[in-house]
């Protein structure tokens, strides 16, 4: 199995405050990793730093993605390289339809990696196939990106975009927040269907809930900017029982 992501001793600050304090993690193809931890531990910061969000400064450490220096790449280059972040709070873009948004995203990406543009027919076929994956109604893609969406619709749209972009490493940041049980199941099933032995996921969550559906191979407890414990999936139940205080 090839290594997709290698984080070594990562330190990062936001507005001068150190949030990540020496985080190391290796993710290989086919693996599902869960990052669990209390509020303020640095979970979302990890997702933000990996995808290159402005305002997050890496002060030490290194990150390799497929052997390349991830931190030297722009957010769009990271996406083209096969990285995806499902946002905890997806952004609303009124006036830009989901279809237009995704056409632009795919066209930029295909251009960047030297592939020809998809024909309109190819795009429609791909869209139809991926919409089925998250049980989306056809009229959905005509709507503006996240504008006026419910929490569940936003998250479903995230997974739909993930399906369209077909990343090798997906980071799911609190994808379960704001979802009712039915939406949670649909979203999780979508993620599971997208998983292959060549792909990996990093599932960031507070709760056990999502991990009942997306079963992790490894569970890491992130506390105060560091991973303090890494075990198998049995750790989830232990966390549920003891709380993060117990570690």
């Amino acid at each position, binding site marked *: 199995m090839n290594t997709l992501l290698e984080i070594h001793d990562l330190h990062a600050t936001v507005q001068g405050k150190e949030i990540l304090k020496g985080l190391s993690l290796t993710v290989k193809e086919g693996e599902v990793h869960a990052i669990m931890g209390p509020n303020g531990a640095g979970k979302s910061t990890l997702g933000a730093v990996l995808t290159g969000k402005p305002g997050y400064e890496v002060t030490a450490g290194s990150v390799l993605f497929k052997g390349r220096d991830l931190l030297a790449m722009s957010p769009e280059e990271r996406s083209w390289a096969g990285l995806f972040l499902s946002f905890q709070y997806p952004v609303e873009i009124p006036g830009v339809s989901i279809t237009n948004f995704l056409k632009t995203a795919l066209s930029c990406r295909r251009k960047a990696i030297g592939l020809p543009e998809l024909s309109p027919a190819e795009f429609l076929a791909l869209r139809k196939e991926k919409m089925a994956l998250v049980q989306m109604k056809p009229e959905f893609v005509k709507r503006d990106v996240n504008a006026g969406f419910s929490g569940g619709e936003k998250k479903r749209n995230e997974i739909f*975009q993930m399906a369209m972009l077909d990343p090798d490493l997906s980071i799911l940041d609190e994808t379960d927040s704001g979802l009712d049980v039915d939406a949670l199941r649909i979203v999780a099933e979508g993620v599971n269907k997208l998983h292959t032995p060549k792909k990996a996921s990093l599932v960031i969550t507070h709760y056990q809930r999502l991990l009942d559906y997306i079963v992790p191979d490894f569970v890491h407890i992130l506390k105060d900017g560091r991973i303090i414990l890494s075990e198998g999936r049995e750790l989830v139940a232990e966390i549920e029982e003891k709380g993060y205080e117990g570690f």
Partner: protein
Amino acid sequence: MKQQLVIYGAANDGLRNPAAGVPAVCATLPEEITLAANEECSLVLIVLPESAKPAAGRLAPATPSDPEAAPATTPAELSLRVKLTGRGAAFRFHALCLGTGSDHFSLRTEVEHLCPDASSDQLIRCIAGGNSRLSFDGLIKVHPDAQRTQALQTSNNLLLTDTAKVATAPQLEIYADDVKCSHGATTGSLDEEEQFYMRSRGISLEKARLLQLRSFVHPVLEAVEDEKRREELTSFVAEALSAL
């Protein structure tokens, strides 16, 4: 009353003389509009920078041009006075002003409520790029007997460069006591969070900016009632945006 569309900076026959059934574009903004009881007026104004003029012929279909409707070059300033003189009169105004290079442009609106139970609603969106200077002055005057007036005014401005400037001066003069009036003005640059969201999906910075601009102008274009016209104008404006 039919909706009026006024475009400056677009010397394009196709826009001015559209196919049958599609509302025409006026050559100039009227200086004064008076609305009597139950009269309604909806006006959409688009001011494009001269340099961002799309190539002629991109918008179909052109018919012989009207000599009265001479190509409207963008003037340095435009002003509009609106008087609401009868109950039930309603004025809707949506404006979009784009500036680039060394464009200077100022827009002034003066909306006077002279009677009770009339309404006015204005949305003005400006995008200033390059070294351009854009300004908007908006006065809403509610006369003493204009009770139950509803007057809204929103001015949103986007600065694309450090050297571009916008000035916005909303003013309310209210002499009646039972009214619903509000004005709001915002000025900012492109939202980074939004930009990051798009870039994280593989949309290049350049394209992300363009989508953000389209999103910003959307509420003005959305006000165009005729669907065919709206689509035409949307692609027309999109082209102007890519030149900012």
